[in-house]
C-alpha cells in the first residue's frame, strides 16, 4: 500500500503589502517523515511555517490535511472550532522561544496537562501521572513537576515545550528553530531527544532551521528556500552532499567545519 501524504501545500503565496513573504510553494509531507526547511534569514521559512500551520492567512494557494478519519480537508474550509481542535490534539508547535509556547506562570505539570484538560480529562491524579510520565520522556526529573518554567534552564524549557506538545500524541509537529539560542552540548542532547521521540512515535515533523547540521541530523527530506521561493528539494543527504543549485552550494560550503 502506498502511503498517502499527510499534508499537501499547493501554490502557497504570501505577500506583506508589496513585499513577498513566500511565493508559489508546493510541498507534501508524509506520515512519519521529517521535512527540513532551510535557508538564510529572511528567505521566507517562518512565513511558510505560519502558512502551513494556518497561523497566517495565505494570499494564494491552499493547504490540505488528512484528518484522522482519512478525509483530506482543505484547512481554509475548516471552522474555527475544528481548526483549534486539530491544533491542540493532532498538531504540535514547538517555538524558538519557549516563553511563546509555554505558560510561564504555570507549573511544568500544568503546562503538560493543559492539552489533556482541553480534551476533557477531569481526573487530577491521571493528568498528573501522565504529565510526570512525559516529563520523564524528555528527561526532566519528576520532582520538578510543580516548578514553573521560569525556574528552568533554556534547554529544559525547550524539552518541556516538546512534552507539552506531544502529550496528546499529535501526528504532525511544526518546529521553528527549536535549537536556536542553545549552546552546542545542550543542542546536541535536544536533537538526540527529538530524533528518538520522532522515531518512537512515528511523528511527521516540519522543522524550520538555518542550521544545516540540524537538518542533516534530523530530517529525511529538505527544502531549500531563497527569496520566498523553494529553489531545491530532495533527500537530505543528497542535497547536502551533492547540491545542485549554486545558492545551495554556497550554503553548504559556508558551514564551518568543527
Amino acid at each position: 500500500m502506498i502511503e498517502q501524504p499527510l499534508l499537501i501545500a499547493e501554490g502557497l503565496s504570501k505577500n506583506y503589502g508589496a513585499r513577498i513573504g513566500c511565493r508559489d510553494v508546493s510541498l507534501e509531507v508524509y506520515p512519519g517523515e521529517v521535512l527540513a526547511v532551510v535557508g538564510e534569514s529572511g528567505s521566507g521559512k517562518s512565513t511558510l511555517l505560519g502558512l502551513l500551520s494556518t497561523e497566517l492567512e495565505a494570499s494564494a494557494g491552499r493547504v490540505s490535511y488528512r484528518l484522522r478519519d482519512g478525509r483530506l480537508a482543505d484547512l481554509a474550509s475548516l471552522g474555527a472550532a475544528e481548526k483549534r481542535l486539530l491544533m491542540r490534539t493532532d498538531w504540535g508547535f514547538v517555538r524558538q522561544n519557549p516563553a511563546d509556547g509555554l505558560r510561564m506562570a504555570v507549573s511544568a505539570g500544568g503546562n503538560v496537562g493543559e492539552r489533556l484538560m482541553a480534551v476533557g480529562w477531569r481526573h487530577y491524579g491521571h493528568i498528573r501521572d501522565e504529565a510526570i510520565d512525559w516529563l520523564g520522556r524528555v528527561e526532566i526529573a519528576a520532582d520538578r513537576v510543580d516548578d514553573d518554567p521560569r525556574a528552568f534552564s533554556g534547554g529544559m524549557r525547550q524539552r518541556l515545550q516538546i512534552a507539552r506538545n506531544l502529550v496528546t500524541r499529535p501526528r504532525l509537529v511544526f518546529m521553528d528553530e527549536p535549537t536556536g539560542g542553545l549552546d552546542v552540548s545542550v543542542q546536541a542532547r535536544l536533537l538526540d531527544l527529538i530524533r528518538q521521540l520522532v522515531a518512537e512515535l512515528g511523528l511527521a515533523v516540519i522543522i524550520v532551521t538555518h542550521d544545516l547540521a540540524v537538518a542533516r541530523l534530523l530530517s529525511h527530506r529538505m527544502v531549500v528556500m531563497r527569496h520566498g521561493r523553494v529553489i531545491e528539494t530532495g533527500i537530505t543527504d543528497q542535497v547536502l552532499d551533492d547540491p545542485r543549485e549554486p545558492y545551495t552550494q554556497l550554503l553548504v560550503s559556508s558551514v564551518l567545519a568543527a
Partner: protein
Amino acid sequence: MNAHATGAMPEITYNFAYLDEQTKRMIRRAILKAIAVPGYQVPFAAREMPMPYGWGTGGVQVTAAVLGPDDVLKVIDQGADDTTNAVAIRGFFEKTARVATTTSAREATVIQTRHRIPETPLTENQILVYQVPIPEPLRFLEPRETETRQLHALAEYGLMHVKLYEDIARHGHIATTYAYPVEVAGRYVMDPSPIPKFDNPKLDDCPALQLFGAGREKRIYAIPPFTRVRSLDFEDHPFRVQRFAQPCALCAATGVYLDEVILDDKGGRMFVCSDTDYCNERQEAGHRGEMAGEAGRASPSPQPSPLRGEGADGALNLSPTGKGRPEGPGEGTWGVPTTPSSAGDPGSARAAPSGMTK
C-alpha cells in the same frame, strides 16, 4: 452631600433612579440578552456613576435599570447592611428613586449585593444584583480579551481547569475559596463575582433572578431563575464548601457563613454570621450563641479590646491561637476564614488589589 446645604440653592432633582430613561433602556436590553444567554457576558455602555469604580458602579446601574417605584431595596456588603458601601448605595437610591429600603432579606424585592448571597432562601419575587469587579473568569490565565472571547465562543474551558490543577499541585486541594468558577446551564463558564465558594451551591436552581453588573469592565451577565449552575472540579477532587467548626457566637446558627472577628491582641476572636440580617433575625427569635451575653449587642460588631498592640506583659503578642478557629487542613475546611476581600487569597491566581470591588 450636605443635606443642610440646600438652603440657598434650588434642590437638585434626579430622574428616577438617577440614570436617564434611554440609558436604562440600553441596560435593560443588555439584561434581557444576558438572561437569554445564561452566563454570557454582554457588553454594555456603562456610564460614569457618582462613585468610584470598584464601589459597585456596575451593580448600581443594573439596580437602577430594574428598580420600579414599588420595589423594596436591600443593599448588602459582605453580608452586612451597615457598612459604608451598603449604606451609601441604599442612601443613593432613597434619594434618587425614593424607593422603600429595608435590611430584611424577606421583605426586599431587589437586593444589591457585594460578595455574599443572603442566608435566607430567596424567592421567585426577588432579584439579586451582584457587584462584579472582574467578570472574566479566564482573565488571569489569558490576558487577551480577543482570545478569551474566542475560548468562550468555542466552549474551550480546559484553561479553567489548569487553574484548579495549579491549586491542587501547590496546596494539595483546590485552594480557590472565592470567585470560584461555575458552569451555567451546561454552557458558559462564569465568574460568580467574589462570593465565597460557600455560596456557590445557592446559585444553583435559585428561584430568584440573578444579575451581575461590572461597571469598569462594562459587562452584564445573568443566571435566570431555576438554572443549573455547577462548580468546576476534578473527579478525584470534587467541589466542597468551607465548613466551620463551631456555630455563630451570637445566634448559634450552624451551616452559615461566618466571619472571624478579632477581639484583642491575645488571640481572642469570635466567629459570627457574615449575614447581619439573618443573625439579627435569629437573635430576635431567641437564639443565643455562647458570646451573645458578653457582646450584649444585637449587631455583631464587637468593640476592640482596650489592649492593643502590646500584651499586658508588654510583649508583642500577635500569635493567632484562638480556640474557635476551624480545625483540620483537609480539603473543604477552611484554615482561616476570612472574608473574600480582606486578605486576598494566597492560593488564588486572582491578584487582589487593583481589580477588587471595594
